[in-house]
């Protein structure tokens, strides 16, 4: 009896240690991000930690006195377009793949997920050369296409998992009760996939909103998304506005992730 108690004690001790390590690693990774937040409330003209005063000056500059806002709007536009395109393409692809079996299905899955497997910089370079030949300057379309490409695999994975959790017999039952294929899709499949679709749309939005490399490669003059503008800004000047931008981005990302978790949990 004592031996088993000792083993149990040992096991809890080990698991405590593992927990501590995990928290330490987490803090190590997250703290630098969080440091940005107090820095954004500093009133000086340079980035400094710890901040020596509290003001909303950087936020004022961001919203009222700079060209940051136009980049922000561009990012929103691109991210929304990406979310819509990626969901339409990704969900229909996931549905088709989940509800059929044919030779070569595995190869198609691999092909659709391949943007996730290829380094983003390679995708970006390919798109750059492609659009350079086609010539789409003066439009956000190349960035939207590029972002849609990298967001599709995530949408397919999220939607496929939602489809897998759905009882297949439900659609069969609806069909036998007299519903046409379109009625089945609209009244049964779509409502049941709703949370999966919303979650994957939010993911696609976030992927696009955060993405730098593709946007940097294929974005032309006048088409700098928010992350690209941040990236080019720190190359020329270290403006403390960037801390405010980073803080806002963190809030948006965290907000979306929390939203996705709530939506997925509700199911």
């Amino acid at each position, binding site marked *: 009896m004592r031996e088993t108690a000792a083993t149990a004690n040992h096991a809890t001790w080990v698991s405590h240690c593992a927990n501590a390590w995990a928290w330490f690693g987490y803090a190590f990774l997250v703290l630098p991000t969080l440091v940005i937040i107090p820095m954004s409330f500093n009133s000086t003209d340079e980035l400094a930690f710890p901040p020596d005063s509290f003001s909303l000056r950087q936020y004022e500059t961001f919203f009222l006195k700079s060209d940051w806002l136009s980049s922000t709007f561009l990012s929103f536009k691109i991210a929304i377009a990406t979310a819509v395109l990626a969901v339409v393409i990704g969900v229909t692809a996931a549905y088709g793949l989940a509800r059929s079996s044919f030779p070569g299905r595995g190869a198609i899955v691999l092909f659709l997920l391949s943007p996730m497997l290829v380094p983003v910089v390679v995708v970006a370079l390919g798109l750059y050369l492609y659009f350079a030949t086609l010539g789409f300057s003066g439009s956000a379309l190349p960035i939207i296409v590029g972002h849609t490409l990298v967001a599709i695999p995530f949408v397919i994975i999220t939607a496929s998992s939602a489809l897998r959790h759905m*009882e297949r017999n439900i659609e069969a039952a609806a069909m036998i*009760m*007299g519903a046409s294929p379109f009625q089945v899709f609209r*009244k049964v499949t779509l409502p049941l996939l709703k949370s999966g679709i919303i979650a994957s749309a939010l993911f696609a939005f976030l992927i696009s909103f955060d993405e730098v490399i593709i946007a940097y490669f294929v974005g032309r003059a006048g088409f700098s998304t928010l992350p690209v503008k941040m990236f080019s800004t720190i190359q020329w000047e270290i403006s403390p506005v960037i801390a405010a931008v980073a803080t806002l981005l963190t809030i948006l990302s965290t907000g979306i992730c929390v939203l996705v978790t709530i939506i997925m949990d509700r199911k």
Partner: protein
Amino acid sequence: MQRTTLTQEPMVRLTGVAKRYGGGVVALDTLDLDVTKGEFVALLGPSGSGKTTLLNIIAGMTPPSWGSVHIAGSDVTQLPPSKRNLGMVFQNYALLPHMSVYENVAFPLRVRKLAEKDIAEKVETVLELVQLAHAKQRLPRELSGGQQQRVSLARCIVYDPSLILMDEPLGALDKKLREQMQSEIKRLHRTLGTTILYVTHDQEEALSMADRIVLFHQGRIVQQATPADLYFKPRSVFAANFLGASNILSTTAVGEGIAQLKSGEPIQIGSGAPVSTNHPVKLLVRPECVRIERREAASRAQGTNSVSGRIVSSTILGNVTNHHIVIADGHTVMAQELTRRAAQDWAPGEEINLTWAAADTRALEPDEMEV
């Protein structure tokens, strides 16, 4: 029960239906089957015997490789499930999880574009019939398994399909609830007079519910008969073993209606397949027909079979007691009797005689698969 009048057209007619998958897998061998209007037919068999495949072919979920399906006189082989006007009850209920009980039952009426007033009226009536009127605003996940299956029954009968298919509808319920639902389904069948095709692997369920049992084995129909006929007159060893407990004796035919065990003891055959002299024949004796008697008191009357044996064990299973006896050829035979306090105690090792009526001895066809 419901087979009052024989209409000229059967409700379901399957002609030469077969299903083969790639790689030569035969899910269903060529078969014909007619189901009369109002009949309750159980498709019984072990899993993988083809009964669910057949149900899916009738529903239109699986196209047959060959053959045709007629429902109520018209060829539906090429029709999609939505155009066949039949109902189906699934083992896992397959209710629409995002709709209330009311909306679930209303669904088939809505896709048929009925007026809202008629929908309300029909749904209320049907929910009353399955005793769920109080739960109509609840979601399926808030109901018990039995209640969910009642919703799926209601959703079937609400649009009055000509035929209801049931795929192991009570398989997910516990024994007590299952028995309650069995009688509920029987009651609905009697009140509505619907034709029901009921897939099950549970022999008791098939025996207690069906007008006719179609027994499946390895993609074929091995026998179809009323429950009583299937129990008392099984044709093959498979049928004898699948329904109820059975003793199968390996004997050799020695003449017209007479065979003998390896020990040389003669057995008179009461019914069953024709036997040919000097060929092996398997005989069925149901355990409840076998009596244990003291060796010296054993009946030697004409029309009674008597075989010597030794008691191995006796087990009380509640209202019945099973005795296991080794007979002279080395096989074990089971004798079943009602448990009574006054019943004779048989000690293991005791030498006794087993007797049963020749009429209870049935010659079986050899199973094709075993040959």
